[in-house]
């Protein structure tokens, strides 16, 4: 394949990655933005989303599409409820103290992961995509006769991958509408600015927190349900998304939703490109170090304002 078509293919693959990463990282960012706590168990909520998707699809049976659509709704909902419950039972009781919350969510991480291991087991299971038509893609080139279109061999994607991208965009838009236009969004933003004042104005801050924590986890779960037809569900699959989400949220500026989206797209897209040039381990080393250095020297993220 020539360079142009090859790039288009890499871009499409990158976009799929970026879509899932955006949703997952947004969940983490939302929680940090509103509640000022870091949820280390975020990757496990992602994993739960994938595992639940497998449970739902294998229980419903029948056509792959119906099972998958059911999973798309049920899995994030259940995960969100579970997270809200964890918030109510644990985080609320430690007053959302930032350091203790990290320790407690590390505990939650192991609880969720190990309970999954004990019930779901150590094996990976696939989930069938609802539809998976192969779509050939055209490419253009200049010939003597001007611009002409042709169909390079191997340049194709699947309808499901396009669906993932579309689903992420729709979710993003919905979330943006929610934050910017709805009353709930107003409440969230008020709580984010100053929890105590919000409380004084009669906002039930504790309930808002539980809701936000649930929403954050549900976003991760949604990302996982979308990814599970491409990648199998496994009880350890939460590690990488956690790390990547951390990277995204830190680069994008802690708690900034817009920065998170930009960083997620950038990193999701470049992930594939970097690993073409480096071994995956070296790429990970560089990425991890970069994040540490950004936190050290630019605590507001690469796109955030310079610290005073």
């Amino acid at each position, binding site marked *: 394949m020539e360079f142009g078509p090859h790039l288009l293919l890499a871009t499409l693959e990158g976009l799929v990655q970026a879509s899932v990463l955006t949703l997952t990282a947004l969940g983490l960012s939302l929680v940090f933005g509103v509640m000022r706590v*870091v949820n280390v168990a975020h990757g496990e909520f992602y994993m739960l989303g994938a595992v639940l998707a497998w449970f739902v699809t294998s229980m419903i049976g029948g056509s792959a599409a119906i099972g998958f659509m059911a999973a798309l709704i049920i899995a994030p909902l259940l995960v969100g409820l579970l997270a809200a419950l964890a918030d109510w039972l*644990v985080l609320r*009781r*430690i007053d959302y103290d*930032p*350091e*203790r919350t*990290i*320790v*407690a969510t*590390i*505990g*939650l*991480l*192991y*609880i*969720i*992961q*190990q*309970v999954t*291991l*004990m019930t779901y087991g150590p094996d990976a299971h696939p989930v069938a995509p609802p539809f998976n038509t192969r779509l050939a893609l055209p490419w253009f080139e200049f010939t003597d006769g001007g611009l002409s279109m042709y169909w390079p061999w191997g340049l194709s994607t699947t309808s499901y991958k396009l669906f993932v991208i579309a689903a992420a965009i729709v979710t993003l838009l919905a979330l943006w509408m929610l934050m910017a236009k709805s009353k709930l969004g107003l409440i969230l933003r008020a709580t984010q600015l100053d929890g105590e004042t919000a409380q004084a104005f009669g906002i039930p801050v504790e309930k808002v927190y539980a809701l936000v924590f649930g929403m954050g986890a549900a976003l991760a779960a949604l990302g996982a349900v979308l990814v599970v037809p491409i990648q199998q569900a496994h009880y350890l699959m939460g590690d990488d998304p956690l*790390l990547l989400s*951390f990277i995204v949220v*830190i680069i994008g500026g802690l708690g900034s939703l817009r920065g998170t989206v930009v960083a997620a797209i950038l990193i999701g897209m470049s992930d594939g490109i970097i690993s073409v040039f480096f*071994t995956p*381990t*070296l790429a*990970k*080393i560089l990425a*991890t*170090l970069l*994040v*540490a*250095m950004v*936190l*050290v*020297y630019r*605590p507001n993220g690469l796109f955030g304002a310079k610290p005073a």
Partner: protein
Amino acid sequence: MRKSIALHLGLIALLIVLQFVLPAYHHGNMARIMVMATYAMGYNIMFGYTGLLSLGHAMFFAAGLYGMGLSVQFLGMGVGPAFGMGLFASLTLSLVVGLLALRTLGVAFMIVTLMFSQTIFLVILYFNPYTRGDEGFVIQQSVRHIFGLDLSDPTIRYFAALVLFSTVLIGTLKLVQSNIGRVFIAIRENEPRAKMLGYDTWRHKLLSVVLSGTVSGAAGASYGILFGYVGASFAQVPYSIFPLLWVLLGGAGTVIGPFIGTLFMFYLIDLSSTVTDAYMLVVGVVLVLLTMFARNGLIGIVRERWAKWLP
């Protein structure tokens, strides 16, 4: 003061007696617990006394472990000098990490240490031809000798672990009762005030990181020598979480707490492993319960209720 010296010397005496009476299985466990408790004591200097919560101490443990192990493997050193190399590696690493990470505070500090530690783990994997990656490598029994003593012999291993443990235990006791130790505590309690008393808090924090990292490295190097194995799993996230857990359980900011926490956790996991393979579940549950109900840990509770003098 006298009471606390009696308590800590008493613990050491008890451990000496235990060497002669413990059945073989628990005897082996106790040697391991003493080395890991040393790691926890190192962690405690930073977290318990200075109030700096690191999520990346596995890198210091691993620096000691690999500094020692690679020196044996590729430089043909004896375990004595190799132990020195382990110390040097962890000291250097903690100095560098301290200089960088201390520019951040609180949650950012936690994440930065986590990221640095993850980097070290990946570096170990990357140099797979030397480190043998996940698989790790064995320190041959023939090398594990010092002063003509065979460190793989259970009795000698026990005493070697005890020497390490006692040195760090008494060292920590001395440290926290010294002027420097009091400044560490002042920083933990109220850093701006400590500054306004004229203390260079940044320098003290750096010292705390270096001491903490080096003690952790000593534990890592000793672990490799006494148990003969060097592997990347010791550089992974769980090994950063364990010392935090041990210290929280035993009591952060108490000299004896890390040992108590390590002991309890070890046997808790040991017992649970007869029921399930998912022993990390126990770790998770204990972590959550501790943050919710017992912030001060076991010894912290004892100190609050009965023995305010506990250092």
